[in-house]
């Protein structure tokens, strides 16, 4: 097929604005009569708390201090479960939970007011180890098991698979919680248009979903909310959950003035999700020829205090832990677990990034035992057109894995 535009390295259409510094990120929006908002966040991981805002309210230039009772609609949000509170009402579940939002005439005064709010914490036992959390002795969300998802895969006969294997390798791998570190910290501006439409400008990965979340928390129909998504300074999954959007909307509606908030880098680390750390227990078996016969895995994903995308991430881990290989006998159990750690959600690769840390090292260990090369063992088992995944899905089209393996290997002198 001959193309005119497809396949051409056309210069990016947003490039000109970006190289000239004219691209507008939310922090670059300045409006007349604008107020500034700052968030007070919990400093302890698990506690009941009370707030005394009286001193802070008296500071000149403080316009309003919002707490849970000021949320007009549902005091909740979340991409899967509505388990986040817009502002925590009486309990915090992690360090960094938002508990108050101060609006003042300047950023400096807002910061001063944050310091002046008195928070009394009554700390309760917290759980940070997901294995411990699975026992449900300490519950992160009242009346709810910490285990929020269990992915199960059963294919073939796992005992027979291992019985037929000439080599078996078993290990436990631990992956870490990490941060998106997009270069543009969260920022936003909200204002109300003449007809009452609430406008929120913020960098987000899904403006139409933010619109719904804002509307529900504000108790207004979705048509009354407009989300403007200006230039976004990187995302990588870290801008899928609500951060400051609802706080700003509340403040704009209450004050009738534009309200802006910009997170510091330190606050940004706490404000958005992280990558789920996973404990991956994995056992892989192959025959003398290097054909994979069995794979058994147990994955525990720590989602921290909130679910965010935990279920989908964990499912994705469970599905991808086989690696891109044909394996006749597979058993996988993957769990998503609440703890009092920072909450985890989407990050580039979404569960499929964690598991190859285990799977792909297993392949090399097997290869060494079998005295074949890492490239050879992969080629022997790689998906090709027509292969079936462990989920029973047929790969009908566009499966150039062997091509990828041989090209990469050749380029580095491994093949």
């Amino acid at each position, binding site marked *: 097929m001959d193309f005119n535009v497809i396949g051409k*390295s056309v*210069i*990016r259409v*947003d*490039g*000109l*604005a*970006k*190289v*000239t*510094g*004219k*691209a*507008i*990120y939310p*922090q*670059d929006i*300045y409006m007349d009569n604008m107020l500034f908002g700052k968030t007070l966040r919990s400093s302890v991981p698990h506690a009941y708390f009370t707030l005394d805002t009286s001193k802070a309210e008296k500071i000149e230039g403080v316009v309003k201090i919002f707490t849970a009772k000021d949320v007009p609609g549902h005091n909740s949000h979340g991409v899967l479960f509505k388990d986040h509170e817009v502002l925590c009402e009486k309990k915090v579940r992690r360090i960094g939970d938002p508990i108050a939002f101060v609006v003042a005439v300047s950023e400096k005064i807002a910061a001063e007011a944050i310091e002046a709010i008195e928070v009394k914490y009554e700390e309760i036992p917290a759980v940070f180890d997901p294995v411990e959390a699975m026992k449900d002795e300490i519950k992160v969300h009242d009346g709810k098991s910490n285990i929020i998802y269990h992915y199960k895969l059963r294919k073939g006969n796992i005992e027979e698979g291992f019985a037929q294997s000439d080599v078996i390798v078993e290990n436990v791998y631990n992956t870490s919680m990490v941060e*998106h*570190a*997009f*270069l*543009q*910290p969260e920022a936003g501006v909200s204002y109300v248009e003449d007809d009452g439409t609430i406008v929120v400008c913020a960098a987000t990965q899904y403006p139409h979903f933010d619109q719904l979340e804002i509307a529900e928390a504000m108790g207004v129909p979705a048509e009354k909310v407009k989300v403007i998504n200006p*230039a*976004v*300074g*990187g*995302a*990588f999954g870290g801008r899928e959950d609500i951060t400051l959007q609802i706080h700003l909307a509340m403040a704009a509606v209450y004050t009738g003035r534009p309200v802006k908030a*910009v997170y*510091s*880098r330190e606050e940004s680390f706490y404000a958005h999700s992280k990558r789920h750390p996973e404990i991956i227990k994995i056992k892989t078996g192959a025959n003398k020829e290097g054909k994979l016969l069995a794979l058994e895995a147990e994955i525990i994903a720590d989602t921290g205090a909130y679910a965010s995308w935990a279920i989908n991430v964990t499912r994705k881990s469970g599905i991808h832990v086989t690696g891109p290989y044909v394996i006749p006998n597979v058993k996988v159990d993957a769990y998503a677990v609440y703890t009092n750690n920072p909450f985890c959600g989407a990050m580039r690769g979404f569960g499929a990034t964690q598991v190859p840390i285990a799977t792909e090292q297993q392949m090399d260990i097997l290869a060494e035992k079998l005295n074949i090369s890492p490239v050879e063992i992969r080629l022997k088992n790689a998906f090709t057109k027509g292969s079936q995944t462990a989920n029973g899905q047929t790969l009908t089209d566009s499966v150039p894995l062997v091509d990828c393996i041989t090209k990469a290997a050749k380029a580095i002198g491994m093949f």
Partner: protein
Amino acid sequence: MKTISLKVNGKPYTVEVEEDMRLLDLLRDKLGFTGVKEGCAEGECGACSVIMDGNLVTSCLVMAFQADGKEIITIEGLQSEDGTLHPIQQAFLDEGAVQCGFCTPAMVLAAKALLDKNPNPTDEQIKEGISGNLCRCTGYAKIVSAVKKAAEYLNQGGK
């Protein structure tokens, strides 16, 4: 409050600044040069870099009053009035060195500070020249080739 005079992109300004105001805030909040970005406020990310008297500085670590009598160049000062891009800007576009763009204004300035002093840098020197500027999107490869290309354009008398 203190009154200072400085030049930004060739234009003189006399402004009142608070003692604790950073050059970054002066440029963004007071003078409207929002191409200067804040990414960390501790001199680590380089997104707030501007050129002050010929040297690349992180404007989050410079106090506004320290800019008294200085000449500052921000990204807004690079494009000609007729809209022609500076060769470095053009090279960033041509080489695909821009993604989210948040690091870009400062990267372009870092490249300028480097090329002003060293018109024919090696790859290693380019990497060093931009090493104070973090980019989370590009993995730097295309930025390095853009700076190389920019050197070419500049040595040919601009593109």
